[in-house]
């Protein structure tokens, strides 16, 4: 086992510390930023009773306590999963966030399931045909893909689809879901539909997730293609690849088992970073496609000054980054027998 208990314990410790730092910071930003949250909580009251209402709100929010107690209290709440009640939705923030996170994760997962194999394949092809027109084309195409603004791509795809009569709005056809008795268990609709063997809903969800996933996948496809091409160019010159060629190992094995294998570790690392980066892209595209994901909630929380939801979102995003990086490290250790964590 390349991942030791020692590493996991250390990593979890660091993750907790990072999240605690983010929680503290997000709380401080909230409290110290201009505009009194208590005023917002009390609903911007005016007139004679205003001072009292604000005072009550302050007490209710615990803002009358010393700052360090407030922070500790908030930390305790955050780590028990209790992030308070959302102002806009009147529901526990944690519940809303979980629903949003599931939707966003589903979108991201599909996008990356397309992007990494596709990008890697394109990159390998380019590296094998270095200096040809195909290489040039792939190079410039991946540069364009990696730098296209995702929100623009999302809007473009959405408009093309809607003008051609394809509905790709929302996560699932509600009527179809009701008719077939689909129930959400985990919040990941693809998984839920599969577990319930509800194939009509599965296909519907897939058809609706695919277009936004394409928009999100553009960036990682471009990045993976470029990184793979560069890493492959080096890997093909490695002594062990050259030796394999000289020993008569078949071209396919040399390319995939020897050279591509050597690029995997780097590819995983870059994909991990890109994955965390794509979260923001996914949130924007979700909004365009009317999906109830984190992006939608972020937008709503800003619009309604729902600071509870906003801090919750920040914490979730931080957690997401930490997890993505840890996962990338672990996958790297699984891929390279020399790496011991």
């Amino acid at each position, binding site marked *: 086992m390349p991942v030791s*208990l*020692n590493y996991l*314990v*250390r990593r979890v410790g660091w993750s907790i510390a990072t999240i605690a730092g983010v929680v503290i910071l997000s709380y401080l930003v909230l409290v110290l930023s201009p505009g009194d949250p208590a005023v917002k909580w009390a609903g911007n009251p005016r007139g004679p009773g205003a001072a009292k209402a604000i005072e009550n709100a302050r007490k209710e929010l615990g803002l009358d306590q010393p700052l360090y107690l407030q922070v500790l209290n908030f930390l305790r709440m955050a780590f028990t999963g209790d992030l308070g009640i959302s102002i806009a939705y009147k529901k526990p923030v944690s519940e809303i966030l979980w629903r949003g996170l599931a939707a966003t994760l589903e979108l991201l997962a599909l996008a990356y399931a397309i992007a990494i194999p596709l990008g890697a394949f394109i990159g390998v092809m380019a590296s094998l045909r270095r200096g040809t027109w195909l290489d040039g084309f792939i190079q410039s195409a991946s540069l364009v893909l990696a730098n296209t603004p995702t929100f623009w791509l999302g809007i473009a795809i959405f408009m093309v689809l809607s003008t051609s009569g394809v509905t790709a709005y929302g996560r699932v056809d509600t009527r179809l879901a009701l008719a077939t008795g689909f129930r959400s268990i985990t919040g990941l609709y693809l998984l839920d539909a599969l577990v319930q063997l509800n194939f009509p809903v599965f296909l519907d969800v897939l058809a609706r997730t695919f277009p936004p996933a394409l928009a999100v996948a553009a960036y990682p496809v471009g990045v993976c293609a470029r990184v793979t091409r560069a890493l492959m160019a080096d890997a093909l010159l490695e002594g062990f690849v050259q030796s394999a060629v000289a020993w008569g190992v078949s071209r396919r094995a040399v390319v995939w088992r020897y050279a591509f294998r050597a690029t995997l570790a780097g590819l995983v690392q870059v994909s991990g970073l890109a994955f965390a980066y794509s979260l923001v892209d996914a949130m924007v595209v979700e909004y365009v496609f009317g999906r109830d994901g984190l992006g939608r909630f972020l937008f709503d929380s800003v619009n309604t000054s729902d600071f509870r939801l906003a801090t919750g979102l920040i914490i979730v995003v931080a957690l997401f980054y930490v997890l993505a990086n840890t996962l990338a490290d672990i996958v790297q250790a699984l891929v390279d027998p020399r790496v011991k964590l």
Partner: protein
Amino acid sequence: MWRAGSTVTASSKPVIELKNVTAGYYTAEGFKTLKKVFKPAITKIDLKVNDGERLAIIGESGSGKTTLLRVILGLLPPLRGDVVVLGEQIYRVPARLRWRITRQIGYVPQDPAKSLNPRLRVAEVMAEPLARTDLSEKEKAERIRDALRIVQLHESILDYYPSQLSGGMMQRVLIARAIVHDPEILLLDEPTSALDVSIQAQIINLLCSIHEKLELAMVTVTHDLPVAQYLADQAVILYRGTIVEKGPMEEIIAHPRSEHARLLVTSYLSGLNGLDRINRAEGVSAGIKRETQR
């Protein structure tokens, strides 16, 4: 230059002295991450280099020669033992003042191509060791010129970047840099292992002449026994962190006592004894002359 059994006339005052030195590295091990385990790379090393002496520290990979080098250069405090350079216990001196002593060691690093900063001209490289001296600019320039003359490089080289130099020239620049501030000790780390044999011979002869001219102590760290034979009169053989043999170079080559030294010597003996015989007699090029005059 090669002198049979040469004993250097300088007084035998030790310039480097290691007493019972154990040094190594800490590694985090086991579940308790805070507990560091000490892994010694060299254990109980006793070593003495006298003024004007030529010593070779010979060891193969993993013998601890790099660790020993770092200890002498003041870069790695030993776990136990005393390190005395020019009469001072260097690890009793605060780290930020240690350079005042260790700069008396002119150090030539391994692999010239990797040791030179590609963004610095030769002139800047050469000026580095003189930076913290109270010499005037004119004196500094004079020193640099002298050093270049000793390593047989033309002054025009000062304007060059390392990438414009050949391997042999880079090594000469590094040697010049090591002696430009007139140190008392010259410390060479594998001085010829990155060079071709013909360049290796040039550098070996150069180093021998420098030792004669500047009358400094010369310590060579190497894995290459035949090269060490030319660069040193005294030798210690390191094996797995301990000194397994020490004594005059020729004595070790002729009668190695420890098992490892024996292995080392036999692996360098050539299969062609005749080749050695001819070399010993007159050098081969004389043979060509005879051949062509015929």
